[in-house]
């Protein structure tokens, strides 16, 4: 009866393990087939080559960065990098205040400048607008007398014939500018580097959604002069709250003055020229019409806002100019050659380490060492699959520190098997049959393994939560291997041992099995015949039976009569 149960359990565990491996494989296969998954874990910059820039906010004494500001900064930087046509850039926050930008390959200087420059929020008057989707026909409010572009005439006049008197002056719209506007394609906005366009010149640009294109006058107010922006419901003239969302804008002293002058001028104009465009990094984020003259520095932007969109605009206005400047804390460019050579080093080191572990295990545990090797292989397969899935779903990147974590894990994982095997041997030394020893040893070993792995897991979790950068990559791989380690011991190593215990080779304690009871000093009289644990042997301790009864009988007795040989003890045992 005791014979079939462990074996059945063992097969059940192994089936579960197969199910887990098959599921992980299927999930990843799904990722590869139907999404952008991959059979290999994605590599971090230090292995793949690329540039990593760490930006740190420039803070005064006692200042802190709010998570909100940081998130805003990340999205602004992301927009800027995307604008540069760099694909696969990753921008993330690190710790509580840093921003990390990772770009594959070596970015050109322009991209670097764009990332490192602060965002620019500007207010420019609208001169001409048009729907961007349609080809240029009849511009709203445009001066129709402006010379139409003639393909035959080579250079168009790009200097205003009459010097413009104010930023809303249509004299800014020169034939060259109009031509540019007419043929303007919103896809070009990002390439033009409008973020660094001169403030005293008009620009041609589009809105966020690429649906409207604009000719804008020179900068009138910059983002620095915004004191605050918030989203809120409008109040009507009676002071009652309406259901309409809007954005409240407060200017500082300079801004108030400038805005009063601008609104006064724009309020008197009609059509597109009544609009005042808010430009973030060269794109129009909103271009409200001017409904009055604002002299108190408070303005309200209304329109078809929802709660979310008004909040988003308020955030853009408030943080758009990156109120906190960022400075480059570190910039690391790793050539692809260095990256791949580091990866090779890691893999070679891992392979050598693994080989040494295998050799040592075989020496120590004979053929039992193969159980260690097989367990390590299973653990390796599981780890690989989990990493591949994580890099697909969670954006995990395997870094050199992560590789180190994996290599270190070989030792930790193998230790679980060592603890287990040593426990089995202890039980054999106590004179149990192999099957009984496997079961009894397992109970004790599992407890130890779980307690010890708990400590490991704790260190991985703490490192992951509190640490930054590389340390985190290390903590992730380390934590994954700890979990997989326990899984493998429970679902693979133990079941295999249970099954091996039923084979003659191991059960009879073959010399090469690593579980030879004779070598282990157990009393063994042939297959399945073990001397029963000896009852009290020496007179001097006959009374001590209770405490030593269950397991340490032989061991403890031997400790007290250290000089006696094994046979001596056994004969004495028989006598009593």
């Amino acid at each position, binding site marked *: 009866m005791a014979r079939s149960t462990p074996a059945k359990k063992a097969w059940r565990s192994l089936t579960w393990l197969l199910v887990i491996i098959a599921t992980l494989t299927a999930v990843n296969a799904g990722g590869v087939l139907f999404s952008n998954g991959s059979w290999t874990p994605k590599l971090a910059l230090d292995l793949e080559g690329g540039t990593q820039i760490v930006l740190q906010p420039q803070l005064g004494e006692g200042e802190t960065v709010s998570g909100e500001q940081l998130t805003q900064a990340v999205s602004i930087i992301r927009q800027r990098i995307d604008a540069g046509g760099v694909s696969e850039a990753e921008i993330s926050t690190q710790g509580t205040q840093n921003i990390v930008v990772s770009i594959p390959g070596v970015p050109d200087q322009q991209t670097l400048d764009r990332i490192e420059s602060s965002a620019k929020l500007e207010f420019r008057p609208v001169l001409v607008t048009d729907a961007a989707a349609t080809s240029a026909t009849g511009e709203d409010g445009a001066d129709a007398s402006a010379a139409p572009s003639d393909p035959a005439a080579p250079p168009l006049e790009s200097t205003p014939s009459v010097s413009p008197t104010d930023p809303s002056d249509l004299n800014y719209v020169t034939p060259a500018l109009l031509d540019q506007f007419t043929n303007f394609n919103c896809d070009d906005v990002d390439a033009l580097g409008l973020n660094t366009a001169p403030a005293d010149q008009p620009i041609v640009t589009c809105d966020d959604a690429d649906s409207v294109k604009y000719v804008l006058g020179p900068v009138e107010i910059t983002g620095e002069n915004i004191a605050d922006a918030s989203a809120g419901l409008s109040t009507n003239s009676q002071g009652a709250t309406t259901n309409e969302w809007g954005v409240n804008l407060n200017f500082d002293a300079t801004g108030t003055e400038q805005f009063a002058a601008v609104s006064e001028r724009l309020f008197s104009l009609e059509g597109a020229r009544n609009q005042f465009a808010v430009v973030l990094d060269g794109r129009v984020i909103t271009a409200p019409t001017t409904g009055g003259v604002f002299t108190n520095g408070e303005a309200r932007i209304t329109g078809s806002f929802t709660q979310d969109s008004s909040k988003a605009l308020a955030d853009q206005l408030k943080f758009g100019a990156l109120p906190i400047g960022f400075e480059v804390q570190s910039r690391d460019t790793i050539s692809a050659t260095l990256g791949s050579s580091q990866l090779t080093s890691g893999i070679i080191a891992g392979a050598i380490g693994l080989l040494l572990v295998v050799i040592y295990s075989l020496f120590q545990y004979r053929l039992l060492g193969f159980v260690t090797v097989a367990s390590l292989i299973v653990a390796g397969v599981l780890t690989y699959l989990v990493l591949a899935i994580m890099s697909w779903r969670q954006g995990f990147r395997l870094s050199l520190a992560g590789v180190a974590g994996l290599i270190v894990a070989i030792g930790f994982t193998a230790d679980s098997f060592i603890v287990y095997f040593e426990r089995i041997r202890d039980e054999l030394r106590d004179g149990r049959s192999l099957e009984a020893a496997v079961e009894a040893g397992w109970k004790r070993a599992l407890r130890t393994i779980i307690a010890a792995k708990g*400590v490991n897991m704790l260190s991985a979790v703490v490192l992951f939560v509190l640490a930054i950068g590389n340390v985190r990559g290390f903590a992730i791989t380390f934590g994954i291997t700890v979990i997989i380690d326990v899984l493998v011991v429970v679902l693979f190593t133990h079941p295999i041992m249970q099954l091996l215990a039923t084979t003659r080779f191991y059960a009879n304690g073959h010399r090469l099995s690593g579980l030879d009871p004779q070598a282990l000093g157990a009393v063994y009289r042939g297959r399945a015949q073990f001397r029963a644990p000896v009852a009290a042997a020496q007179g001097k301790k006959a009374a001590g039976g209770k405490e030593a009864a269950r397991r340490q009988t032989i061991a403890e007795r031997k400790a007290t009569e250290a000089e006696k040989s094994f046979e001596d003890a056994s004969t004495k045992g028989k006598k009593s």
Partner: protein
Amino acid sequence: MANLTQFGNDLYTGKKSVSFVGKRRLWYSIAIVLMAISVVIPLAGGGFNFGIEFRGGSQFQITGASTVEQQPAIDAVQEVVPGEVTRVTTVGSAGVRVQTDQLTDAETREVAASLADAYGVQVADVTASFIGPSWGADITEQAVRGLLVFLALASIIMALYFRTWKMSVAAMVALLHDLVITAGVYAATGFEVTPAAIIGFLTILGFSLYDTVVVFDKVRENTGELGQQSRYTFSEAVNLAVNQTLVRSINTGVVAALPVAAILFIGSFVLGADTLRDISLALLVGIIVGTYSTVFVAAPLYAQMREGEPEIRKTDDRTRIARGEAVV
């Protein structure tokens, strides 16, 4: 290797026994001397060799260089920035690492080009980094915070699991011992302290406690069986437990150290991968010292702390009297 099995048997039965607890004065003395040396070396020898991540500056790394001579690098830097102090090190067999003070963007590009020229490689094979002085400090600050939280949590969890805070204290003392000595090795060998090395340090925490938990679990098991009329005093039971797990300790130590030693060897001598080398030195030392300190520091310390408890003293006395009577 069969000898180790035999050795294990003898240790298990008590036929052979290393007096970890009995000779604790000796083991404590060794530990204290080692720790003292580890503290004195950095003080006397000018402290730790902090990596560029802690100092700040610009770093270039050339892979696949045609020569690993240092002079071309110094000349290349001088060409662009006259008078700049340049530190050149060889990494692996065909890698050169050049460190300077912080350079401007333009200078960085020029130096990279000039280095590529000097070592006969493509500009793409020259890695340029610039590290602000606060980078390493930031990582360290986070690491120290992580360390403190981890120690506090681990102490609590161990105290709960073993149902005695004394095991936690003993484990923490052993851990401190490991960290001090590992730091001492860094100072003595002049290895650079980089963020990677800090990761190594943090892992030692995990390993040292892990190893202690495994051994203490056996100690708990053995001492838990001590009854009213035990043949063993508390310290003897602890000693037997440590001896019984000694083979495991040795095997684990070796198995954990082998891959790490492989990384250290490959990382420092053959291929040159800084991160791997820095992590692995801390780990290798930490694993060896951690395995050692569990049996030579944590266990005796724990036995000593518990021995004084009235309950245990009473039981021990009874055991000794019973034994004395039996002998006589």
